């Protein structure tokens, strides 16, 4: 056995929720404990908020009375989804994945108390994965002291000290793909990518992902139309100081591009996504429907 192969592993990759997840640590020997912590935490999150499990707390809440008391974990996840909805002006909305007329403004949360108006049901899919990445990264760093990068189906979050060279992240349109990637490095915060080139649907209660090219029916929904987004941009990657922030921004930028196409406005207005990202001081990489790349803020050119 060579010295190289005997070195403790610091990066692990595994299957999760129909995609790929990864954990990287700075401290050799902390990878396995980190994986155990993340696995346990993801189990708790899934039992609280999955819409693919009939026994999850969220499914029970959606089926129950309009007023309900949530567990602390689910209450925090709902609060995050509403905060994202508010910060994006409703471009990212936890109520839009279900047919209906309600919006996030029909959801009322105070501590653990939730009241839903107008038959609104919640789906935290737009924020839960990114929030879980942030939560797991923080948990691992606090429990083990190691620097860590947690990646959940393309949503990445770093916590604690970074490696000397920073965390290297491969950026692609599909997180499962090995093709057409560029690499960036971050020292902290999160990176997320939203794309219309992948689509997710349910089959016998399970999440099934199909990769294709636009205009496919993807899982990014415009709250205005309640249909999959198309339009100016097909993939947006964002770096922010949290994965939740990065994910909210990448999704919002796609939705804004959809609005521009929807309204048939001029080229000036189709850059609204770029302006929106710049206004928030974000670094981003956008790929349009023809494959042309635009970088925003501090994203490497």
């Amino acid at each position: 056995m060579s010295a190289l192969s005997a070195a403790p592993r610091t990066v692990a990759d595994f299957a999760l929720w129909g995609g790929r997840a990864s954990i990287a640590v700075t401290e050799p020997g902390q990878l396995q404990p980190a994986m155990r912590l993340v696995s346990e935490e993801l189990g708790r999150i899934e039992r609280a908020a999955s819409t693919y499990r009939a026994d999850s707390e969220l499914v029970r809440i959606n089926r129950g009375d309009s007023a309900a008391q949530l567990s602390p974990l689910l209450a925090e996840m709902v609060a995050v989804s509403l905060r994202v909805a508010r910060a994006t002006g409703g471009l990212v909305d936890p109520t839009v994945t279900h047919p209906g007329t309600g919006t996030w403004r029909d959801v009322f949360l105070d501590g653990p108390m939730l009241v839903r108006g107008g038959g609104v049901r919640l789906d935290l899919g737009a924020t839960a994965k990114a929030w879980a990445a942030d939560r797991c990264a923080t948990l691992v760093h606090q429990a083990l002291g190691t620097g860590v990068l947690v990646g959940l189906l393309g949503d990445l979050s770093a916590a604690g000290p970074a490696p000397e060279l920073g965390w290297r992240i491969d950026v692609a349109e599909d997180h499962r793909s090995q093709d057409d990637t560029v690499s960036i490095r971050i020292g902290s915060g999160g990176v997320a990518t939203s794309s219309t080139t992948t689509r997710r649907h349910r089959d016998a209660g399970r999440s099934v992902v199909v990769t294709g090219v636009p205009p496919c029916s993807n899982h990014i929904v415009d709250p205005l139309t309640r249909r999959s987004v198309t339009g100016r941009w097909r993939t947006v990657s964002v770096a922010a100081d949290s994965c939740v922030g990065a994910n909210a921004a990448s999704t919002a930028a796609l939705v804004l591009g959809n609005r521009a196409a929807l309204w048939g406005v001029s080229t000036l207005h189709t850059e609204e996504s770029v302006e929106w990202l710049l206004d928030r001081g974000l670094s981003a990489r956008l790929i349009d429907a023809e494959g042309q790349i635009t970088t925003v803020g501090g994203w490497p050119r």
Partner: protein
Amino acid sequence: MDRSEEARRRAMTIAVLSALGGAAATGLLMGGLALADQDGATTDQTTTDPTVTDDDLWSGQTSPWSDDDGADSGSGSSVPQGPGSGSSGRTGGS
């Protein structure tokens, strides 16, 4: 209306709605939300952390950098694959 006053009023509303439950709560809720929005205040629907504002979601600056400095060793390197040398993660649509 300041945020603390609005939060206090929401808490009272929630307590009443929780006691009522069901469809009656929904009707009252709609009225309550309409009142809350009349003064143009930011719709703040959670008091989990009242000190957090919307802008805090992107308050920090995070600028990635590239490997153009040649620091990336990749495969074939004699340096052990630590988290700073190889890929640590992958972002992309899901």
